[in-house]
C-alpha cells in the first residue's frame, strides 16, 4: 500500500511555491495557524504536543517509578493510587505509559533522521542524474518495496536479534524506499525548472544544485510523507514489540506492554487497554497531522 501512496504523490507533484523559502518565520506562523483552523489537524497538533511534553517532563508527570516492582500490589485495578492500575509486577501502568512515550519518540526520531536524509539523497541523486545511476537505485528500491514492510522488518530483526536499536534499524531499512521514490519524482519535475536551469547556467556544481536548490524544494512533500510515515513507524514498532522482537524488558515500550499484558487480559483489561489506546492515539495524531500538512502544503492532492 505504501508504494501506492508514493505513486499518488508522484502523479501530482508539489509545486515549489509551497511557502518554505521566502520570509520563513512569518510564513511558518501563517501556515501553522491555517493548519490549526481544521479541527482534525488541530487535534493532531495537540496530541503530538502532549506526547512531547509527556516525554520531556516524564519524571514530573509520572506518579511512580516505571521500573520498580511491588509484588504485593500486582494487577490492581485502576484507582486513585494507580490511575491506570498496575501490571503483573505491581508496576504503575500510567507511569510506564508516560515513560513509554520516550521510547516511542526515540524510535520515531531515530527512524526519521535515518530515513529522511537517505531517502532524500538517493531520490534526488537518482532523479537528477538519471541514466544508469537512476536505474541502479530504482532497482534496489524496487527490491525493497517488493516485500511488505512488516515482513521485511520481521526478517531483519530476526536476523539481527531482538532489541530496540535493531528494531529501529529494521524499520528504517524498510521505510526509506517510498521516501526515495517520492524525492526522485519531485526532483524530476524540478530538474528542468527555470530556477534550476538558471543555477546551472551560472556554473553551480551538481552537488550545490542538489543540496541548495532541489533538496530544499523537495522538503515540503517529504515532510508530509515523513509525518505520515511516523504513524506507520509507531505501529510497526509496536507490532515488533508485540511479537517479542522489539524493545526488551524492562523498557516500558507500549507494544511490549500489550504483549506481556495479554496473558492477564481477561481479568485485568487495563494491562492491554491503556497501552493500546496510547498507540492508537499517537499514531492517529501523526496521521491527522500529516493529512493536515498535506492539505496545507499541497492542496491539489486532496
Amino acid at each position: 500500500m505504501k508504494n501506492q501512496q508514493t505513486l499518488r504523490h508522484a502523479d501530482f507533484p508539489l509545486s515549489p511555491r509551497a511557502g518554505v523559502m521566502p520570509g520563513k518565520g512569518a510564513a511558518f506562523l501563517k501556515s501553522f495557524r491555517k493548519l490549526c483552523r481544521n479541527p482534525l489537524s488541530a487535534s493532531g497538533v495537540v496530541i503530538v504536543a502532549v506526547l512531547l511534553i509527556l516525554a520531556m517532563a516524564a519524571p514530573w508527570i509520572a506518579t511512580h517509578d516505571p521500573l520498580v516492582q511491588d509484588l504485593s500490589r500486582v494487577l490492581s485495578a485502576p484507582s486513585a493510587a494507580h490511575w491506570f492500575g498496575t501490571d503483573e509486577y505491581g508496576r504503575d501502568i500510567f507511569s510506564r505509559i508516560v515513560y513509554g512515550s520516550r521510547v516511542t519518540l526515540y524510535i520515531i526520531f531515530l527512524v526519521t533522521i535515518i530515513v529522511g536524509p537517505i531517502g532524500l539523497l538517493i531520490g534526488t541523486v537518482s532523479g537528477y542524474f538519471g541514466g544508469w545511476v537512476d536505474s541502479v537505485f530504482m532497482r534496489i528500491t524496487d527490491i525493497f518495496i517488493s516485500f511488505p514492510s512488516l515482513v521485511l522488518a520481521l526478517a531483519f530483526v530476526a536476523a539481527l536479534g531482538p532489541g530496540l536499536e535493531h528494531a529501529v534499524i529494521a524499520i528504517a531499512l524498510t521505510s526509506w524506499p517510498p521516501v526515495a521514490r517520492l524525492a526522485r519524482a519531485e526532483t524530476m519535475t524540478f530538474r528542468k525548472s527555470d530556477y534550476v536551469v538558471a543555477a546551472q547556467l551560472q556554473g553551480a556544481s551538481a552537488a550545490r544544485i542538489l543540496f541548495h536548490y532541489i533538496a530544499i524544494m523537495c522538503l515540503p512533500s517529504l515532510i508530509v510523507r515523513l509525518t505520515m510515515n511516523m504513524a506507520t513507524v509507531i505501529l510497526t514498532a509496536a507490532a515488533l514489540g508485540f511479537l517479542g522482537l522489539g524493545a526488551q524488558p524492562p523498557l516500558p515500550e507500549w507494544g511490549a506492554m500489550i504483549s506481556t499484558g495479554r496473558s492477564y487480559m481477561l481479568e485485568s483489561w487495563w494491562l492491554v487497554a491503556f497501552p493500546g489506546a496510547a498507540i492508537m492515539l499517537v499514531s492517529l495524531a501523526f496521521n491527522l497531522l500529516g493529512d493536515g500538512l498535506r492539505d496545507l502544503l499541497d492542496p491539489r492532492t486532496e
Partner: protein
Amino acid sequence: MALLKRCLIGLLGLWLTASASANTPSDQLIIALKMSNILSLDPAAATGNDIAFVNANLYDTLIELDVADPTVIHPALATDWEVADDSMAITFTLRDDVEFHSGNPLTAADVVWSIERVLDLNLALATTWKALGFTRENVAQLVTQTGEHELEIAFPRQLDPKLVMYTLATSPSAFILDQQEVMAHEHEGDWGNRWLTTNAAGSGAFVLGQWIPQDRIVMAKNDRYWGETPVIERVVMRNLKESQTMRLMIERGDLDVAIGMSVPDIRSLENAEQLEIQTTQRGTLYYVAVSMNNDILADERVRRAIRGTINYAGINDSIMPYYGIFHQRPVKLGLPATLPEPMYSLTTEEARALMAEAGYPNGFTTTIRALNESPFINVAINLQSSLERIGINAEILSGTGNQVYGAMRDRRFDIIVGRGGGGFAPHPDSNLTPLLLNPDNSDEARLTNFQGWRTGYQNTRINELITEAVAEADSDVQNALYAEVQSIYEEDVGALFPFSQMINTVVVGGQVEGYRDDPSAMTRLRSVTKTRE
C-alpha cells in the same frame, strides 16, 4: 427486501444456535497444546516432552514406570527381565502376541534394531545412550538377540542396572519400531528417518491417523492392541499457542485437556468445579547459571553474592506456582539421595560485602539471557531487580530457545535463566550427569550436552564421585556418594543455581476420567474414558 430481511434473521438464528452447542463428542478426546516443539516424530530425533507424550501413545517400550510411584517397574513389551550375576547385563523376554500397526509381528530383532538405529543415526536422542557408554561401534556386540522373543543388553562398563532399566522405560528413544515397515521407506541409508519424521510405525494403543505439522495430530484407537483396548475412538491434538484461548475453550467444554496454559489462566480456573488441575513433578530443574568463562563471575565470592541474592521465596511464591516448586539442590526432590534444602540467603549488606571483597564495591554490568516466555522472562526480570540491589546492572537479552540455549552451548553468555538437567528417570544420575559432570573443560572438547561444560564449572572430585556412583549397585553406598557431591557443590558455589523444580500442569475437563499425567512425560491415553455430561 422483506425476504432478504427474513433470510438474515434466519441466518442470525442459526448462528446463535451453532454457538450454543459446543461440547466435545464423547468418543473423542480433544487435547490442546503448543506444538512448536514437535518437529519430528522419529523417536531417534525427537526432543522434548511433547513428542514423548505423542509417541508414548503410538509406540510401546519394553517396560514402563508406575505413574504414581516411578520406582516401580511394570512389564510392557517385555514380560520378564533378569540382571546377570555380575551386574553387567540384563536379559529380556518379550510378549509373543504383539503385532505392529502394520500387522507385522514384533520380535526381539525389532528391539535390537531399534536401539541400534538410535545410535547409528546419532541424532539428538543418541546422547542418552552415549552417556551410558553405548556407541555406534559397540552397540552391535552389546545388544543382541538371543531368541525369537529374547534379547540381551550387555553393559559397556560397570553400571547401576537401574540406570539402564530407567532409560529403557523413560527415554523417548526407547520406543520399539517396526523394522520391516520402516526399512520399506528407507531413503539413501537414513534408517527411514525422513519417513518417520511425519509417520509412525509402532505397536502402541493408538494409530497415527493424520498429522498436519504445527496444526493437528489425529490418532485412532488400535483395535488389535495387546493390552486393554482403548475406550476413546479418536484423539485429536490441536496446536494452540494462546493460553487465554485454551482457557476460554476448556471452560466452555470445547476442549478436554489443555496442556501448557499460563499461570494467570490456570489460577482463574482454580475455582471452576467441573475442571481438574493436575500438577505433576518433573525431574527437570529451573536454574540461574553463570559463566565461569567470565572473569568476574568466576570469582567465588561474586557467585556466592549472586546465589544469596536471588529472591527464592518471591520467585517461587509469585512466579513459579504451577511451573515449579522451591528446590535448590542439583538432585531432584523425593529421592533418598536428595539432601535437605540449603536455604541460601544473604542480606544486601552481606552480599555487598562479598562483592567489595572480590573487588567490585560498585558492582558491574552484565547480561541475563532468558527465554522470551513465562516463567523464564519473569524470573529474569525479578533477578534483574534483585541484582540491582547489590550493584549489578544486568541487561536482559530475551530470545527463543535456540538463541538462549545456543549462546549457552557456545559458552557465550554471562548469566542465564534456564531449565534443564534431564531428570526423566527416578535416579540422581539423571540430574547430575547433565548438570554437573564436566570431564573436559577445554573449549575444544565441545561437550555441549553437559551443562557443566557449558557453564565452564569443573570440579574433579565431583566428576570422580559421579562416575563412581554410576557404577555402584549398592543403594546405600551410592546415596552416600551422591550426598557428598551435593555438599561439595554447595560449598564450592557451583556455577548453576537451581531455584525450582519443574511441575507440569495440565487442566482436565470434568467429563474426562483416567487421564494421569506421567512424571516422565510418557502420558498414556489408553485408559482414558469420557462420560456424557
